[in-house]
């Protein structure tokens, strides 16, 4: 009853411990071998505290662990923590640590390491705002870690368990490692073997790993994890065609991001298993509410009413998509249906009427997109065509990804619609996603830097609402306000396809590939 999320966590901890040891934990049916994974992007750093890229997470999430993480269905669970107790006044959280956990350098993990890790995160961690409601943290004994709050924060544990930029636990001597330069020593089932930036990163099994016996199976990033392969090599293969080719020849055992056009051919290949990952990201465009002509709500609504999402998503994804409105997916607990009517209207007559009401006189509408992500580029091309059909003068501004990000952060950089894709945040839940559209830097560039009052009020309640239901209702209001005032245009959800060789067993598609509990059949 206290906080619904916490109940879920404690349930994971207590019920499993109470269960009789009848169910056998996972055991590798076969061990050995080198598993080669074709990864699409370079790894800038394995410092999981200061990097927010998928390429970092792909590798580092197999090496590092945190006190809490998310399970297969994105619910918070305990990982390095054995138990978590919330004080009745919700002013403190007490973690006890899982006994027997050792770092890859052989040193046993104690609460001193946890304190040091939190210290480092509070200085350099990218998502350190999540510690804003925290007053202090301390080690009360080698196995106990206590966090004291400034004020009750119902969403604290949800934020803490995020796998976006998790507060991973590292040995205390790494406390002062500068940003991006964290030594790669964690507690996970895999340890760093060799890294050749630009080419590959190889992990090897950590024989001193202590699995979490509260579980029998891997779940999400936690659970009972076992390293079955001797080594796992993440090979950087940026070219989609080359990844597919490598998979076909068997040089690569699994790959991420199979180009849609190759999927048909791979379907016919008996040596390959296709593993579609639904809802990889929300294909989206954000309006600039400070820049004419999109500073006028009627102009934005005109844009909204002409868009044909099937056409846009089809071009963006080569056909591998699902229509989806709003900022959550139907299978998620956060899913709400507010603002549904604003989606996929395909109503040129309404658009023309709204344009006339707005007094639109052919001022150019600048679509900011990039060439690095073909889906964003193609979405912009199709949207442009649709806007032209109702007489909106459009101008395509195609730059590279870093430039488009930098421009999108400035209200006066000369853009009206910024094309992007939101992946990790919607997967983490509404709270993470809505942070994009909330203070201190809402992406829709609120006029005069004053956030829309309806959006802002809903956001506050999403953070402070005492029950899950209250927070979900607040999210519904926030989504409704954002869509009805047409600040954001979510186009739909893109499906990404992973694939493996047929002899790879135990591989379950997930946002970030998990190398534990995966093995080669004969």
């Amino acid at each position: 009853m206290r906080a619904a999320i916490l109940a879920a966590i404690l349930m994971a901890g207590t019920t499993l411990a109470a269960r009789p040891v009848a169910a056998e934990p996972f055991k590798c049916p076969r061990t050995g071998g080198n598993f080669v994974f074709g990864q699409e992007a370079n790894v800038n750093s394995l410092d999981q505290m200061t990097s927010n890229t998928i390429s970092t997470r792909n590798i580092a999430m197999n090496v590092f662990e945190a006190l809490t993480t998310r399970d297969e269905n994105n619910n918070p669970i305990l990982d390095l923590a054995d138990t978590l107790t919330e004080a009745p006044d919700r002013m403190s959280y007490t973690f006890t640590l899982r006994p027997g956990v050792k770092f890859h350098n052989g040193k046993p993990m104690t609460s001193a390491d946890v304190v040091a890790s939190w210290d480092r995160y509070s200085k350099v961690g990218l998502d350190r705002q999540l510690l804003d409601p925290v007053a202090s943290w301390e080690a009360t004994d080698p196995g106990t870690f206590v966090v004291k709050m400034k004020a009750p924060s119902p969403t604290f544990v949800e934020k803490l368990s995020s796998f976006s930029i998790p507060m991973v636990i590292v040995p205390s001597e790494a406390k002062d490692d500068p940003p991006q330069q964290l030594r790669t020593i964690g507690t996970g089932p895999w340890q760093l073997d060799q890294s050749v930036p630009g080419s590959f990163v190889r992990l090897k099994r950590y024989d001193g790993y202590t699995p979490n016996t509260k579980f029998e199976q891997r779940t999400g990033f936690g659970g009972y994890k076992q390293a079955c392969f001797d080594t796992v090599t993440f090979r950087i293969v940026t070219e989609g065609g080359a990844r597919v080719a490598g998979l076909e020849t068997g040089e690569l055992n699994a790959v991420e991001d199979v180009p849609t056009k190759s999927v048909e051919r791979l379907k016919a290949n008996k040596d390959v298993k296709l593993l579609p990952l639904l809802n990889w990201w929300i294909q989206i465009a954000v309006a600039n509410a400070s820049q004419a002509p999109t500073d006028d709500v009627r102009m934005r609504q005109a844009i909204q009413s002409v868009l044909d999402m099937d056409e846009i998503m089809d071009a963006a994804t080569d056909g591998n998509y699902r229509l989806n409105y709003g900022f959550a997916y139907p299978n998620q607990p956060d899913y709400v249906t507010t603002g549904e009517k604003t989606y996929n209207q395909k109503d040129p007559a309404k658009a023309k009427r709204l344009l006339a009401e707005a007094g639109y006189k052919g001022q150019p509408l600048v679509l900011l997109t990039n060439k690095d992500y073909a889906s964003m580029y193609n979405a912009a091309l199709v949207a442009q065509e649709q806007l032209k059909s109702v007489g909106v003068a459009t101008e395509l501004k195609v730059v590279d990804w870093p430039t488009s990000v930098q421009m999108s952060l400035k209200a006066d950089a000369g853009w009206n619609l910024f094309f992007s894709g939101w992946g990790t945040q919607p997967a983490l839940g509404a709270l993470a996603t809505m942070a994009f559209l909330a203070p201190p830097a809402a992406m829709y560039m609120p006029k005069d830097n004053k956030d829309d009052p309806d959006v802002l009020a809903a956001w506050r309640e999403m953070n402070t609402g005492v029950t899950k239901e209250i927070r979900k209702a607040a999210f519904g209001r926030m989504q409704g306000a954002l869509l009805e005032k047409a600040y954001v245009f979510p186009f739909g959800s893109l499906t990404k396809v992973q694939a493996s060789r047929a002899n790879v067993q135990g591989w379950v598609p997930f946002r970030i590939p998990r190398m534990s509990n995966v093995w080669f059949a004969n």
Partner: protein
Amino acid sequence: MWRATLRRLLRHRLFVTGLALFLVVLALAAFAPWLTTADPTKLGIRTKFRPPSAEFVFGTDNLGRSLWSRAVWGARLSVEIGVAVVVLNAVFGTLVGALSGYFRRLDGPLMRFNDALMAFPAILLAIGITAVLGPSTENVILALAVVYVPRTARIVRASVLVLRETEYVQAAVAAGASHWRILRTHVLPNALAPLIVQLSFLFAYAVLTEATLSFLGLGAVPPTPTWGNIMAEGRQYMREAPWIITIPGLLLMMTVMGLNLLGDGLRDVLDPRLRLQP
């Protein structure tokens, strides 16, 4: 004299082949608006990935755009870029190379500057310049000129260095001829053959480097079609829809080959030393 040269050129089989190929490309470029009915940027939601057929001579791409239209308009851009880069090189490359090779005093500073520019790997310098100036046709031309002029200058300088020491130049110096006259009448005409060969390559480089820049996402601003960015956009479909990348690729090869044959022919006929031979 001119008529004789022209007659000799027209009797040169390779030259005529090259000229024909190049004229085809020039015609595509010049008459692009009349040769195409479809707007090269017009999307066709229902005509994606059509292989070449009667309706779409060159097929369509992933967004259903007519590749015939895109390829023809791409020819215009490639020719524009190639010609501009060659002209800039002919003027500035010769100037720098001749000055540097002929006047020892200028050689040091000019070649140091040349070296500094050549020291950057070509494509990285081009990437850097287009990234700074922003992608546009003019900026690509400027970037390619900055990248290739030093290379042309070096070739011209190498010939001039040799020619400067020849007897007839020494004799002219002894006879008190002016530097300008010597350069114009004795040195440059004799340095022309390697320059022509270099310039024929250069057109190829210009077009190829533009294609590479586009391949890396830094060419002329999309959705303007260039052979480079058509190939860049088509490369991820090259196994399922190979025509998207093959058609501009073949056009590119045709253009370059035509120019090289042309250059070879010109050289065979115009180079005075070769003409002395029986």
